[in-house]
């Protein structure tokens, strides 16, 4: 490597040979393997050697994982792209302009955005497969797919964790946020592109860690990884904590990057009054991420120490409820981390598809911000069954009050649609479905906020139905709305309207038939986290499973449609929806430079009184960055 330093000053290298490099992902895997083996061996065989212990111990696997993730990140390109320049060496990482750019470290926000989108898509498919296995098992009251309950519970945990931390938290923020925020505010890059390039590669590492965790031992705690149960689980729980740590770190870095981008990279003329709704949503989410992700990371570090050393923080001699408190302190804001971008998307898509000015915009923003603030005050409604009765009322109060700012998202959306010229296409359909589903989630949320009702339906399938309505019903349906709405922008092509609508109606019906019946299962006494249950619940579970498979097929159908049209669809116009937001005022898909020159914004983006564009292409270029 020393030759690089001397060659830096212009002299050509004597021994430069053209040799193909290893694909970065392969190199990352290799370095990860080496890192793991070296660190694991050092810890388990040298520093922490104990009689009778296997090669992989709790301590060694934890530190080995740290080394492996380091190796993976560096190997995939961060070594040349970020670390060496940081240490003062010249940057020597060139990303080719073909499909290869998606499989290596990159600093282009569009590449990173797509990498995030496909990472979260991968997580969605894996966790969805886990859900299918679970539904298959639940078709019978006895165990028949899994050969022991621990295997089923591990599957539940993998499903929940991957869905929450790599899809719910990532898909609309790291994915569509990274791709579209710079475009929507008229910038050519994000604020910290290198950091963004590194943070993306934590997502596949985190997903892989969580998915492979049962190999270390079945963990039975579900996605909360809750102590004190986790403290007596086999070592698989370690990979839960570590995997989530990687995923949350990634989201934390995204939050910092996008907040700084929105505040500092706006095009001239894009004043605070003109910030697009989606950017407002991302801003609100980023602030939530910045506060609550470090919180849960610290909790997980303590739980990890609890499992590795072990320190009995959360055991009976410690404080067994503290973990639950700390988890839900994060856990409820997490729910809003997931749906706030969905609300913002409704308010982004409906004015465009209705070709009508956004209704009561200020209330939409107030709604997003107050949801963000209140979300930190409601956590204990997850714990009505294990708290003192006197503590229930304040939390019940705030939980009920949060429906007011949430309602503003409906106020804005419904007001925008009233007397619009509404184009009933696939994105609109998904948006309306998302509104309908979240409404059911919200109404049942009011029921759950009531302590007396909560004491009966908590930890039953009623709750499972409720949060699937908010997460799949609102967020995943909005995610699909975003996929179809921005499809021409991402791919330069157009999806098929007919098959798009078929897919939308398909998943809508299957989704409601599946999770609508969950409410009744819960009320009828079906408890959570069980692969076996009394036989009277069998007929309904059997039938629900059939709808669940239909739902799974519906998702696969949609993805196949998207993939097919991405390659074969008819070429789309640059701005097929006649939208006014900035991302549509450039080529589809955008070139290497989003805007050249940077446009000057002269009016708001949600004014559809006429067809004038909200920008003027300014003659002076932005100072080169």
């Amino acid at each position, binding site marked *: 490597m020393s030759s690089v330093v001397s060659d830096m000053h212009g002299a050509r290298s004597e021994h430069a040979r053209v040799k193909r490099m290893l694909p970065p992902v392969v190199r990352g895997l290799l370095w990860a393997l080496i890192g793991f083996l070296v660190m694991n061996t050092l810890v388990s065989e040298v520093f922490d050697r104990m009689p009778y212990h296997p090669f992989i111990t709790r301590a060694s696997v934890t530190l080995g994982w740290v080394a492996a993730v380091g190796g993976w990140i560096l190997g995939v390109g961060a070594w040349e792209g970020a670390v060496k320049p940081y240490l003062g060496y010249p940057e020597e990482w060139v990303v080719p302009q073909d499909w290869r750019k998606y499989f290596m470290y990159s600093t282009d926000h569009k590449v990173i955005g797509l990498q995030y989108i496909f990472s979260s898509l991968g997580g969605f498919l894996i966790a969805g497969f886990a859900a299918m296995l679970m539904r298959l098992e639940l078709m019978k009251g006895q165990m028949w797919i899994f050969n022991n309950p*621990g295997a089923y519970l591990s599957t539940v945990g993998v499903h929940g964790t991957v869905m929450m931390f790599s899809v719910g938290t990532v898909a609309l923020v790291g994915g569509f946020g990274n791709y579209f925020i710079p475009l929507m505010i008229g910038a050519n890059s994000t604020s910290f592109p290198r950091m963004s390039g590194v943070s993306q590669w934590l997502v596949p590492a985190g997903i892989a860690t969580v998915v492979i965790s049962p190999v270390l031992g079945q963990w039975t705690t579900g996605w909360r990884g809750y102590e*004190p149960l986790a403290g007596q689980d086999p070592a698989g729980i370690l990979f839960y904590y570590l995997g989530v740590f990687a995923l949350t770190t990634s989201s934390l870095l995204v939050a910092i990057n996008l907040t700084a981008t929105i505040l500092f990279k706006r095009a001239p003329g894009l004043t605070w009054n003109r910030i697009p709704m989606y950017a407002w949503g991302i801003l609100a989410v980023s602030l939530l991420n910045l506060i609550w992700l470090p919180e849960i990371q610290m909790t997980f570090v303590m739980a990890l120490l609890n499992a590795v050393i072990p320190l009995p923080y959360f055991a009976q001699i410690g404080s067994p409820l503290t973990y639950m408190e700390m988890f839900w302190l994060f856990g409820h804001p997490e729910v809003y981390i997931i749906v706030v971008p969905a609300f913002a998307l409704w308010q982004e898509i409906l004015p465009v598809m209705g070709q009508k000015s956004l209704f009561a915009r200020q209330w939409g923003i107030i709604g997003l911000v107050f949801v963000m603030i209140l979300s930190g005050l409601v956590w204990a409604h997850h714990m009505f069954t294990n708290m003192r009765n006197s503590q229930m009322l304040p939390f019940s109060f705030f939980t009920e009050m949060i429906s007011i700012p949430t309602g503003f998202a409906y106020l804005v959306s419904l007001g925008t649609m*009233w007397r619009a*010229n509404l184009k009933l296409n696939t994105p609109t359909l998904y948006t*309306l479905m998302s509104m309908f589903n979240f*409404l059911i989630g919200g109404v049942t949320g009011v029921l759950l906020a009531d302590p007396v009702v909560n004491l009966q339906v*908590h930890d039953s399938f009623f709750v499972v139905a409720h949060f699937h309505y908010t997460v799949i019903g609102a967020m995943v349906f909005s995610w699909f709305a975003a996929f179809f709405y921005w499809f021409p922008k991402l791919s330069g092509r157009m999806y098929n309207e007919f098959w798009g609508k078929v897919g939308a109606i398909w998943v809508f019906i299957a989704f409601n038939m599946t999770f609508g019946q969950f409410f009744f299962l819960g009320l*009828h006494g079906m408890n959570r986290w069980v692969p076996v249950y009394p036989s009277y619940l069998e007929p309904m579970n059997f039938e629900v499973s059939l709808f669940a498979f239909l739902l799974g097929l519906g998702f696969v159908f949609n993805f196949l449609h998207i993939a097919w049209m991405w390659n074969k669809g008819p070429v789309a116009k640059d701005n097929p929806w006649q939208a006014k937001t900035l991302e549509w005022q450039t080529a589809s898909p955008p070139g290497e430079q989003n805007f050249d020159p940077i446009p000057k914004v002269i009016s708001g983006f949600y004014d*559809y009184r006429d067809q004038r564009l909200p920008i003027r292409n300014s003659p002076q270029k932005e100072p080169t960055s």
Partner: protein
Amino acid sequence: MGDILAFTLVWILVSALGEIGIQSLIHHGVYYYTATTQALDGEAAFAFIITVLTPVFAFIVVMIGYDMIRFRSREPGMRPSPRQFYNNKVFVSIWILVSIALNLLFFVHPTASAVEQMFNSEKERYNRHDLIINVTARQWQWLFDYPQYNITQAQDANGNSILYLPVDRTVRFVLRSYDPMHMYDPYAGVIHSFWIPAFGVKQDIIPGETRYMYVHTNKVTSYNVDPMVRVQCAEVCGPGHPFMEAPVHVVSNVDFMNWIKQQQKLQAGQS
């Protein structure tokens, strides 16, 4: 104005239909099967909330549907709607006031009042003639002790734990999580949740703490009558969690005393 009128009519119609449906659901019992007064309290709160929320639900659903049909674009391209407005102070004000009012109502009525009813009524029952049952949750078994009758670990013929309760009696469950048999580290207890679905209430059991749950049984029933009359662990507690179940029998006072005698005889024989 015509749109508003038409929408209002549809909304009222759908709300009325919805209410009819909801009331018939409530009539059949949203909790499916109830066996305590606490379950009835919960069911009443549930019914009140869904009754009030039905018109709200209908308002939004009908509006989505109405917008979809009435204001859909009939042309192939995109064209700005001829009717543009940014705000409607009347609509926004009503919306905000109604949402605040509804939330305050819910907080006052089912939330605060039902919590009061469910828990504060216990106070006057303290030290009355409650049946005390010590419930011990351990991985993965329920153990029921009747200290007033010197019964430890009530069992059926197979050695499975069983819970017998007299009807029309307040029962005080004293809930603890630990392992009297020491099959695992006694300091490493986990959280369980004591739930009898037909009783309409559950309480988590925290290692190291003692918690109480009160119910007032109101009908003679048993696991054989309806499988919702069973103790079921509701908080995941390890691989044995789904199996942590025990049948419940609510019987007349005479039958209860007979059962007590039989258990006492059984225990005398064992020791």
